[in-house]
């Protein structure tokens, strides 16, 4: 799977992921404290500048932002029709700033740096006995490892349909796909325990 991270050496890349996430959270609170189009417009200009500084290239940037921009546009239009132009402008500006800032953090932080933050953040939960923090990294690795296998299962289920001249229907695809996939759970769990990866006592 290709991640949304882009290589580079900008100031954002060098900043610690914790600082970036805290900054994003702070920005989302600040944006709600004002309704002034001038302040929000300035924030948008800054966010665009920040995002444009990333080594993404215009085409890739547009490709990444298009789906989210699209939903923002639809909601702004809905808001304009049922509420007022002012409401629509505020929503449009706030959402665009937040989305650009979030996309900037995503593009400048590696998956392993994020896993580290998630593991750190789970430590208090671990002390409460809710999760094993080290499992988070293991689980993420398992998902990335198994997605291609499952799309492979999907291909074979589809081929089986085609070979028998049956139409593809959600039910007849999803059920064999799930059973095929979950049946390998015991084998995978056995392999993990045999290698002592989780250091469990029980």
């Amino acid at each position, binding site marked *: *799977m290709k*991640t*949304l*991270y882009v290589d580079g050496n900008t100031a954002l890349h060098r900043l610690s992921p914790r600082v970036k996430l805290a900054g994003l959270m702070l920005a*989302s609170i600040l*944006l*709600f404290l004002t309704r002034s189009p001038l302040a929000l417009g300035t924030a948008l200009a800054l966010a665009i500048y920040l995002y444009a500084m990333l080594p993404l290239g215009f085409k890739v940037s547009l490709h*990444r932002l298009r*789906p*989210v921009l699209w*939903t*923002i546009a639809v*909601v702004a239009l*809905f*808001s304009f029709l*049922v*509420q007022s132009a002012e*409401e629509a402008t*505020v*929503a449009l500006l706030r*959402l665009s700033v937040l*989305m*650009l800032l*979030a*996309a900037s953090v*995503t593009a400048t*932080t590696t*998956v392993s740096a*994020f896993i580290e933050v*998630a593991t750190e953040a789970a430590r208090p939960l671990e002390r409460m006995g809710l999760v094993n923090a080290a499992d988070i990294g*293991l*689980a*993420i690795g*398992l*998902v*990335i490892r*198994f*997605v291609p296998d*499952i*799309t492979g299962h*999907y291909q074979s289920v589809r081929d089986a349909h085609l070979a028998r001249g049956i139409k*593809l229907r*959600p*039910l007849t*695809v*999803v*059920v064999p*796909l*799930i*059973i095929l*996939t*979950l*049946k*390998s*759970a015991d084998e*995978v*769990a056995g392999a*993990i325990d045999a290698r002592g990866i*989780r250091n*469990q006592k029980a």
Partner: protein
Amino acid sequence: MSTRDLVLTALFTAIIVALGLVPPVSVSLVPVPIHAQSLGVMLAGLILGAKRGTAAVLLFLLLAAIGLPVLAGGRGGLGVFVAPPAGYLVGFAFAAFVAGFLSERFVNARQSGFAQISGFFLAAVVGGILVDHLMGVLWLAYGPTGLGLTKATIGTLAFVPGDILKAGIAALAARAVLAGYPLLPHRA
């Protein structure tokens, strides 16, 4: 969590991701393509139960948050958590929990097939539709979009018929998986 539970959770997350990659399937009766990813979320609760189902969805959301393009259409990143439909996305975790919690109580292996399907359908409607749409509406109404409660509710109603169809498919699929490879923990 035992290693087997951890693996089942991760495998189901992978199924939810994979369902976002396959092209949407259309059902012959209704001209709406079935968006398979939210079907996967309902199924996580119905098939794995509350605890593992919620964990599978939380893992899915974590993958999206850290920038893996796991959402349908190859989307991902922190941006999707502030976009207008973010409430529905975060609501997935609550949906899986409620759907799992209810199906653990409504469904057991000794019931007739019809009773099992009805139990799963009820759990999918309450968890997958009621809870998810409630979260979605709250975010649309009071989040950065600020639509207000009435307008957000009107907006969400357009998607309910399609979701009821999805709950029906989820119930039939969950019952078929229960018959073929039972995993749901039973509770009185």
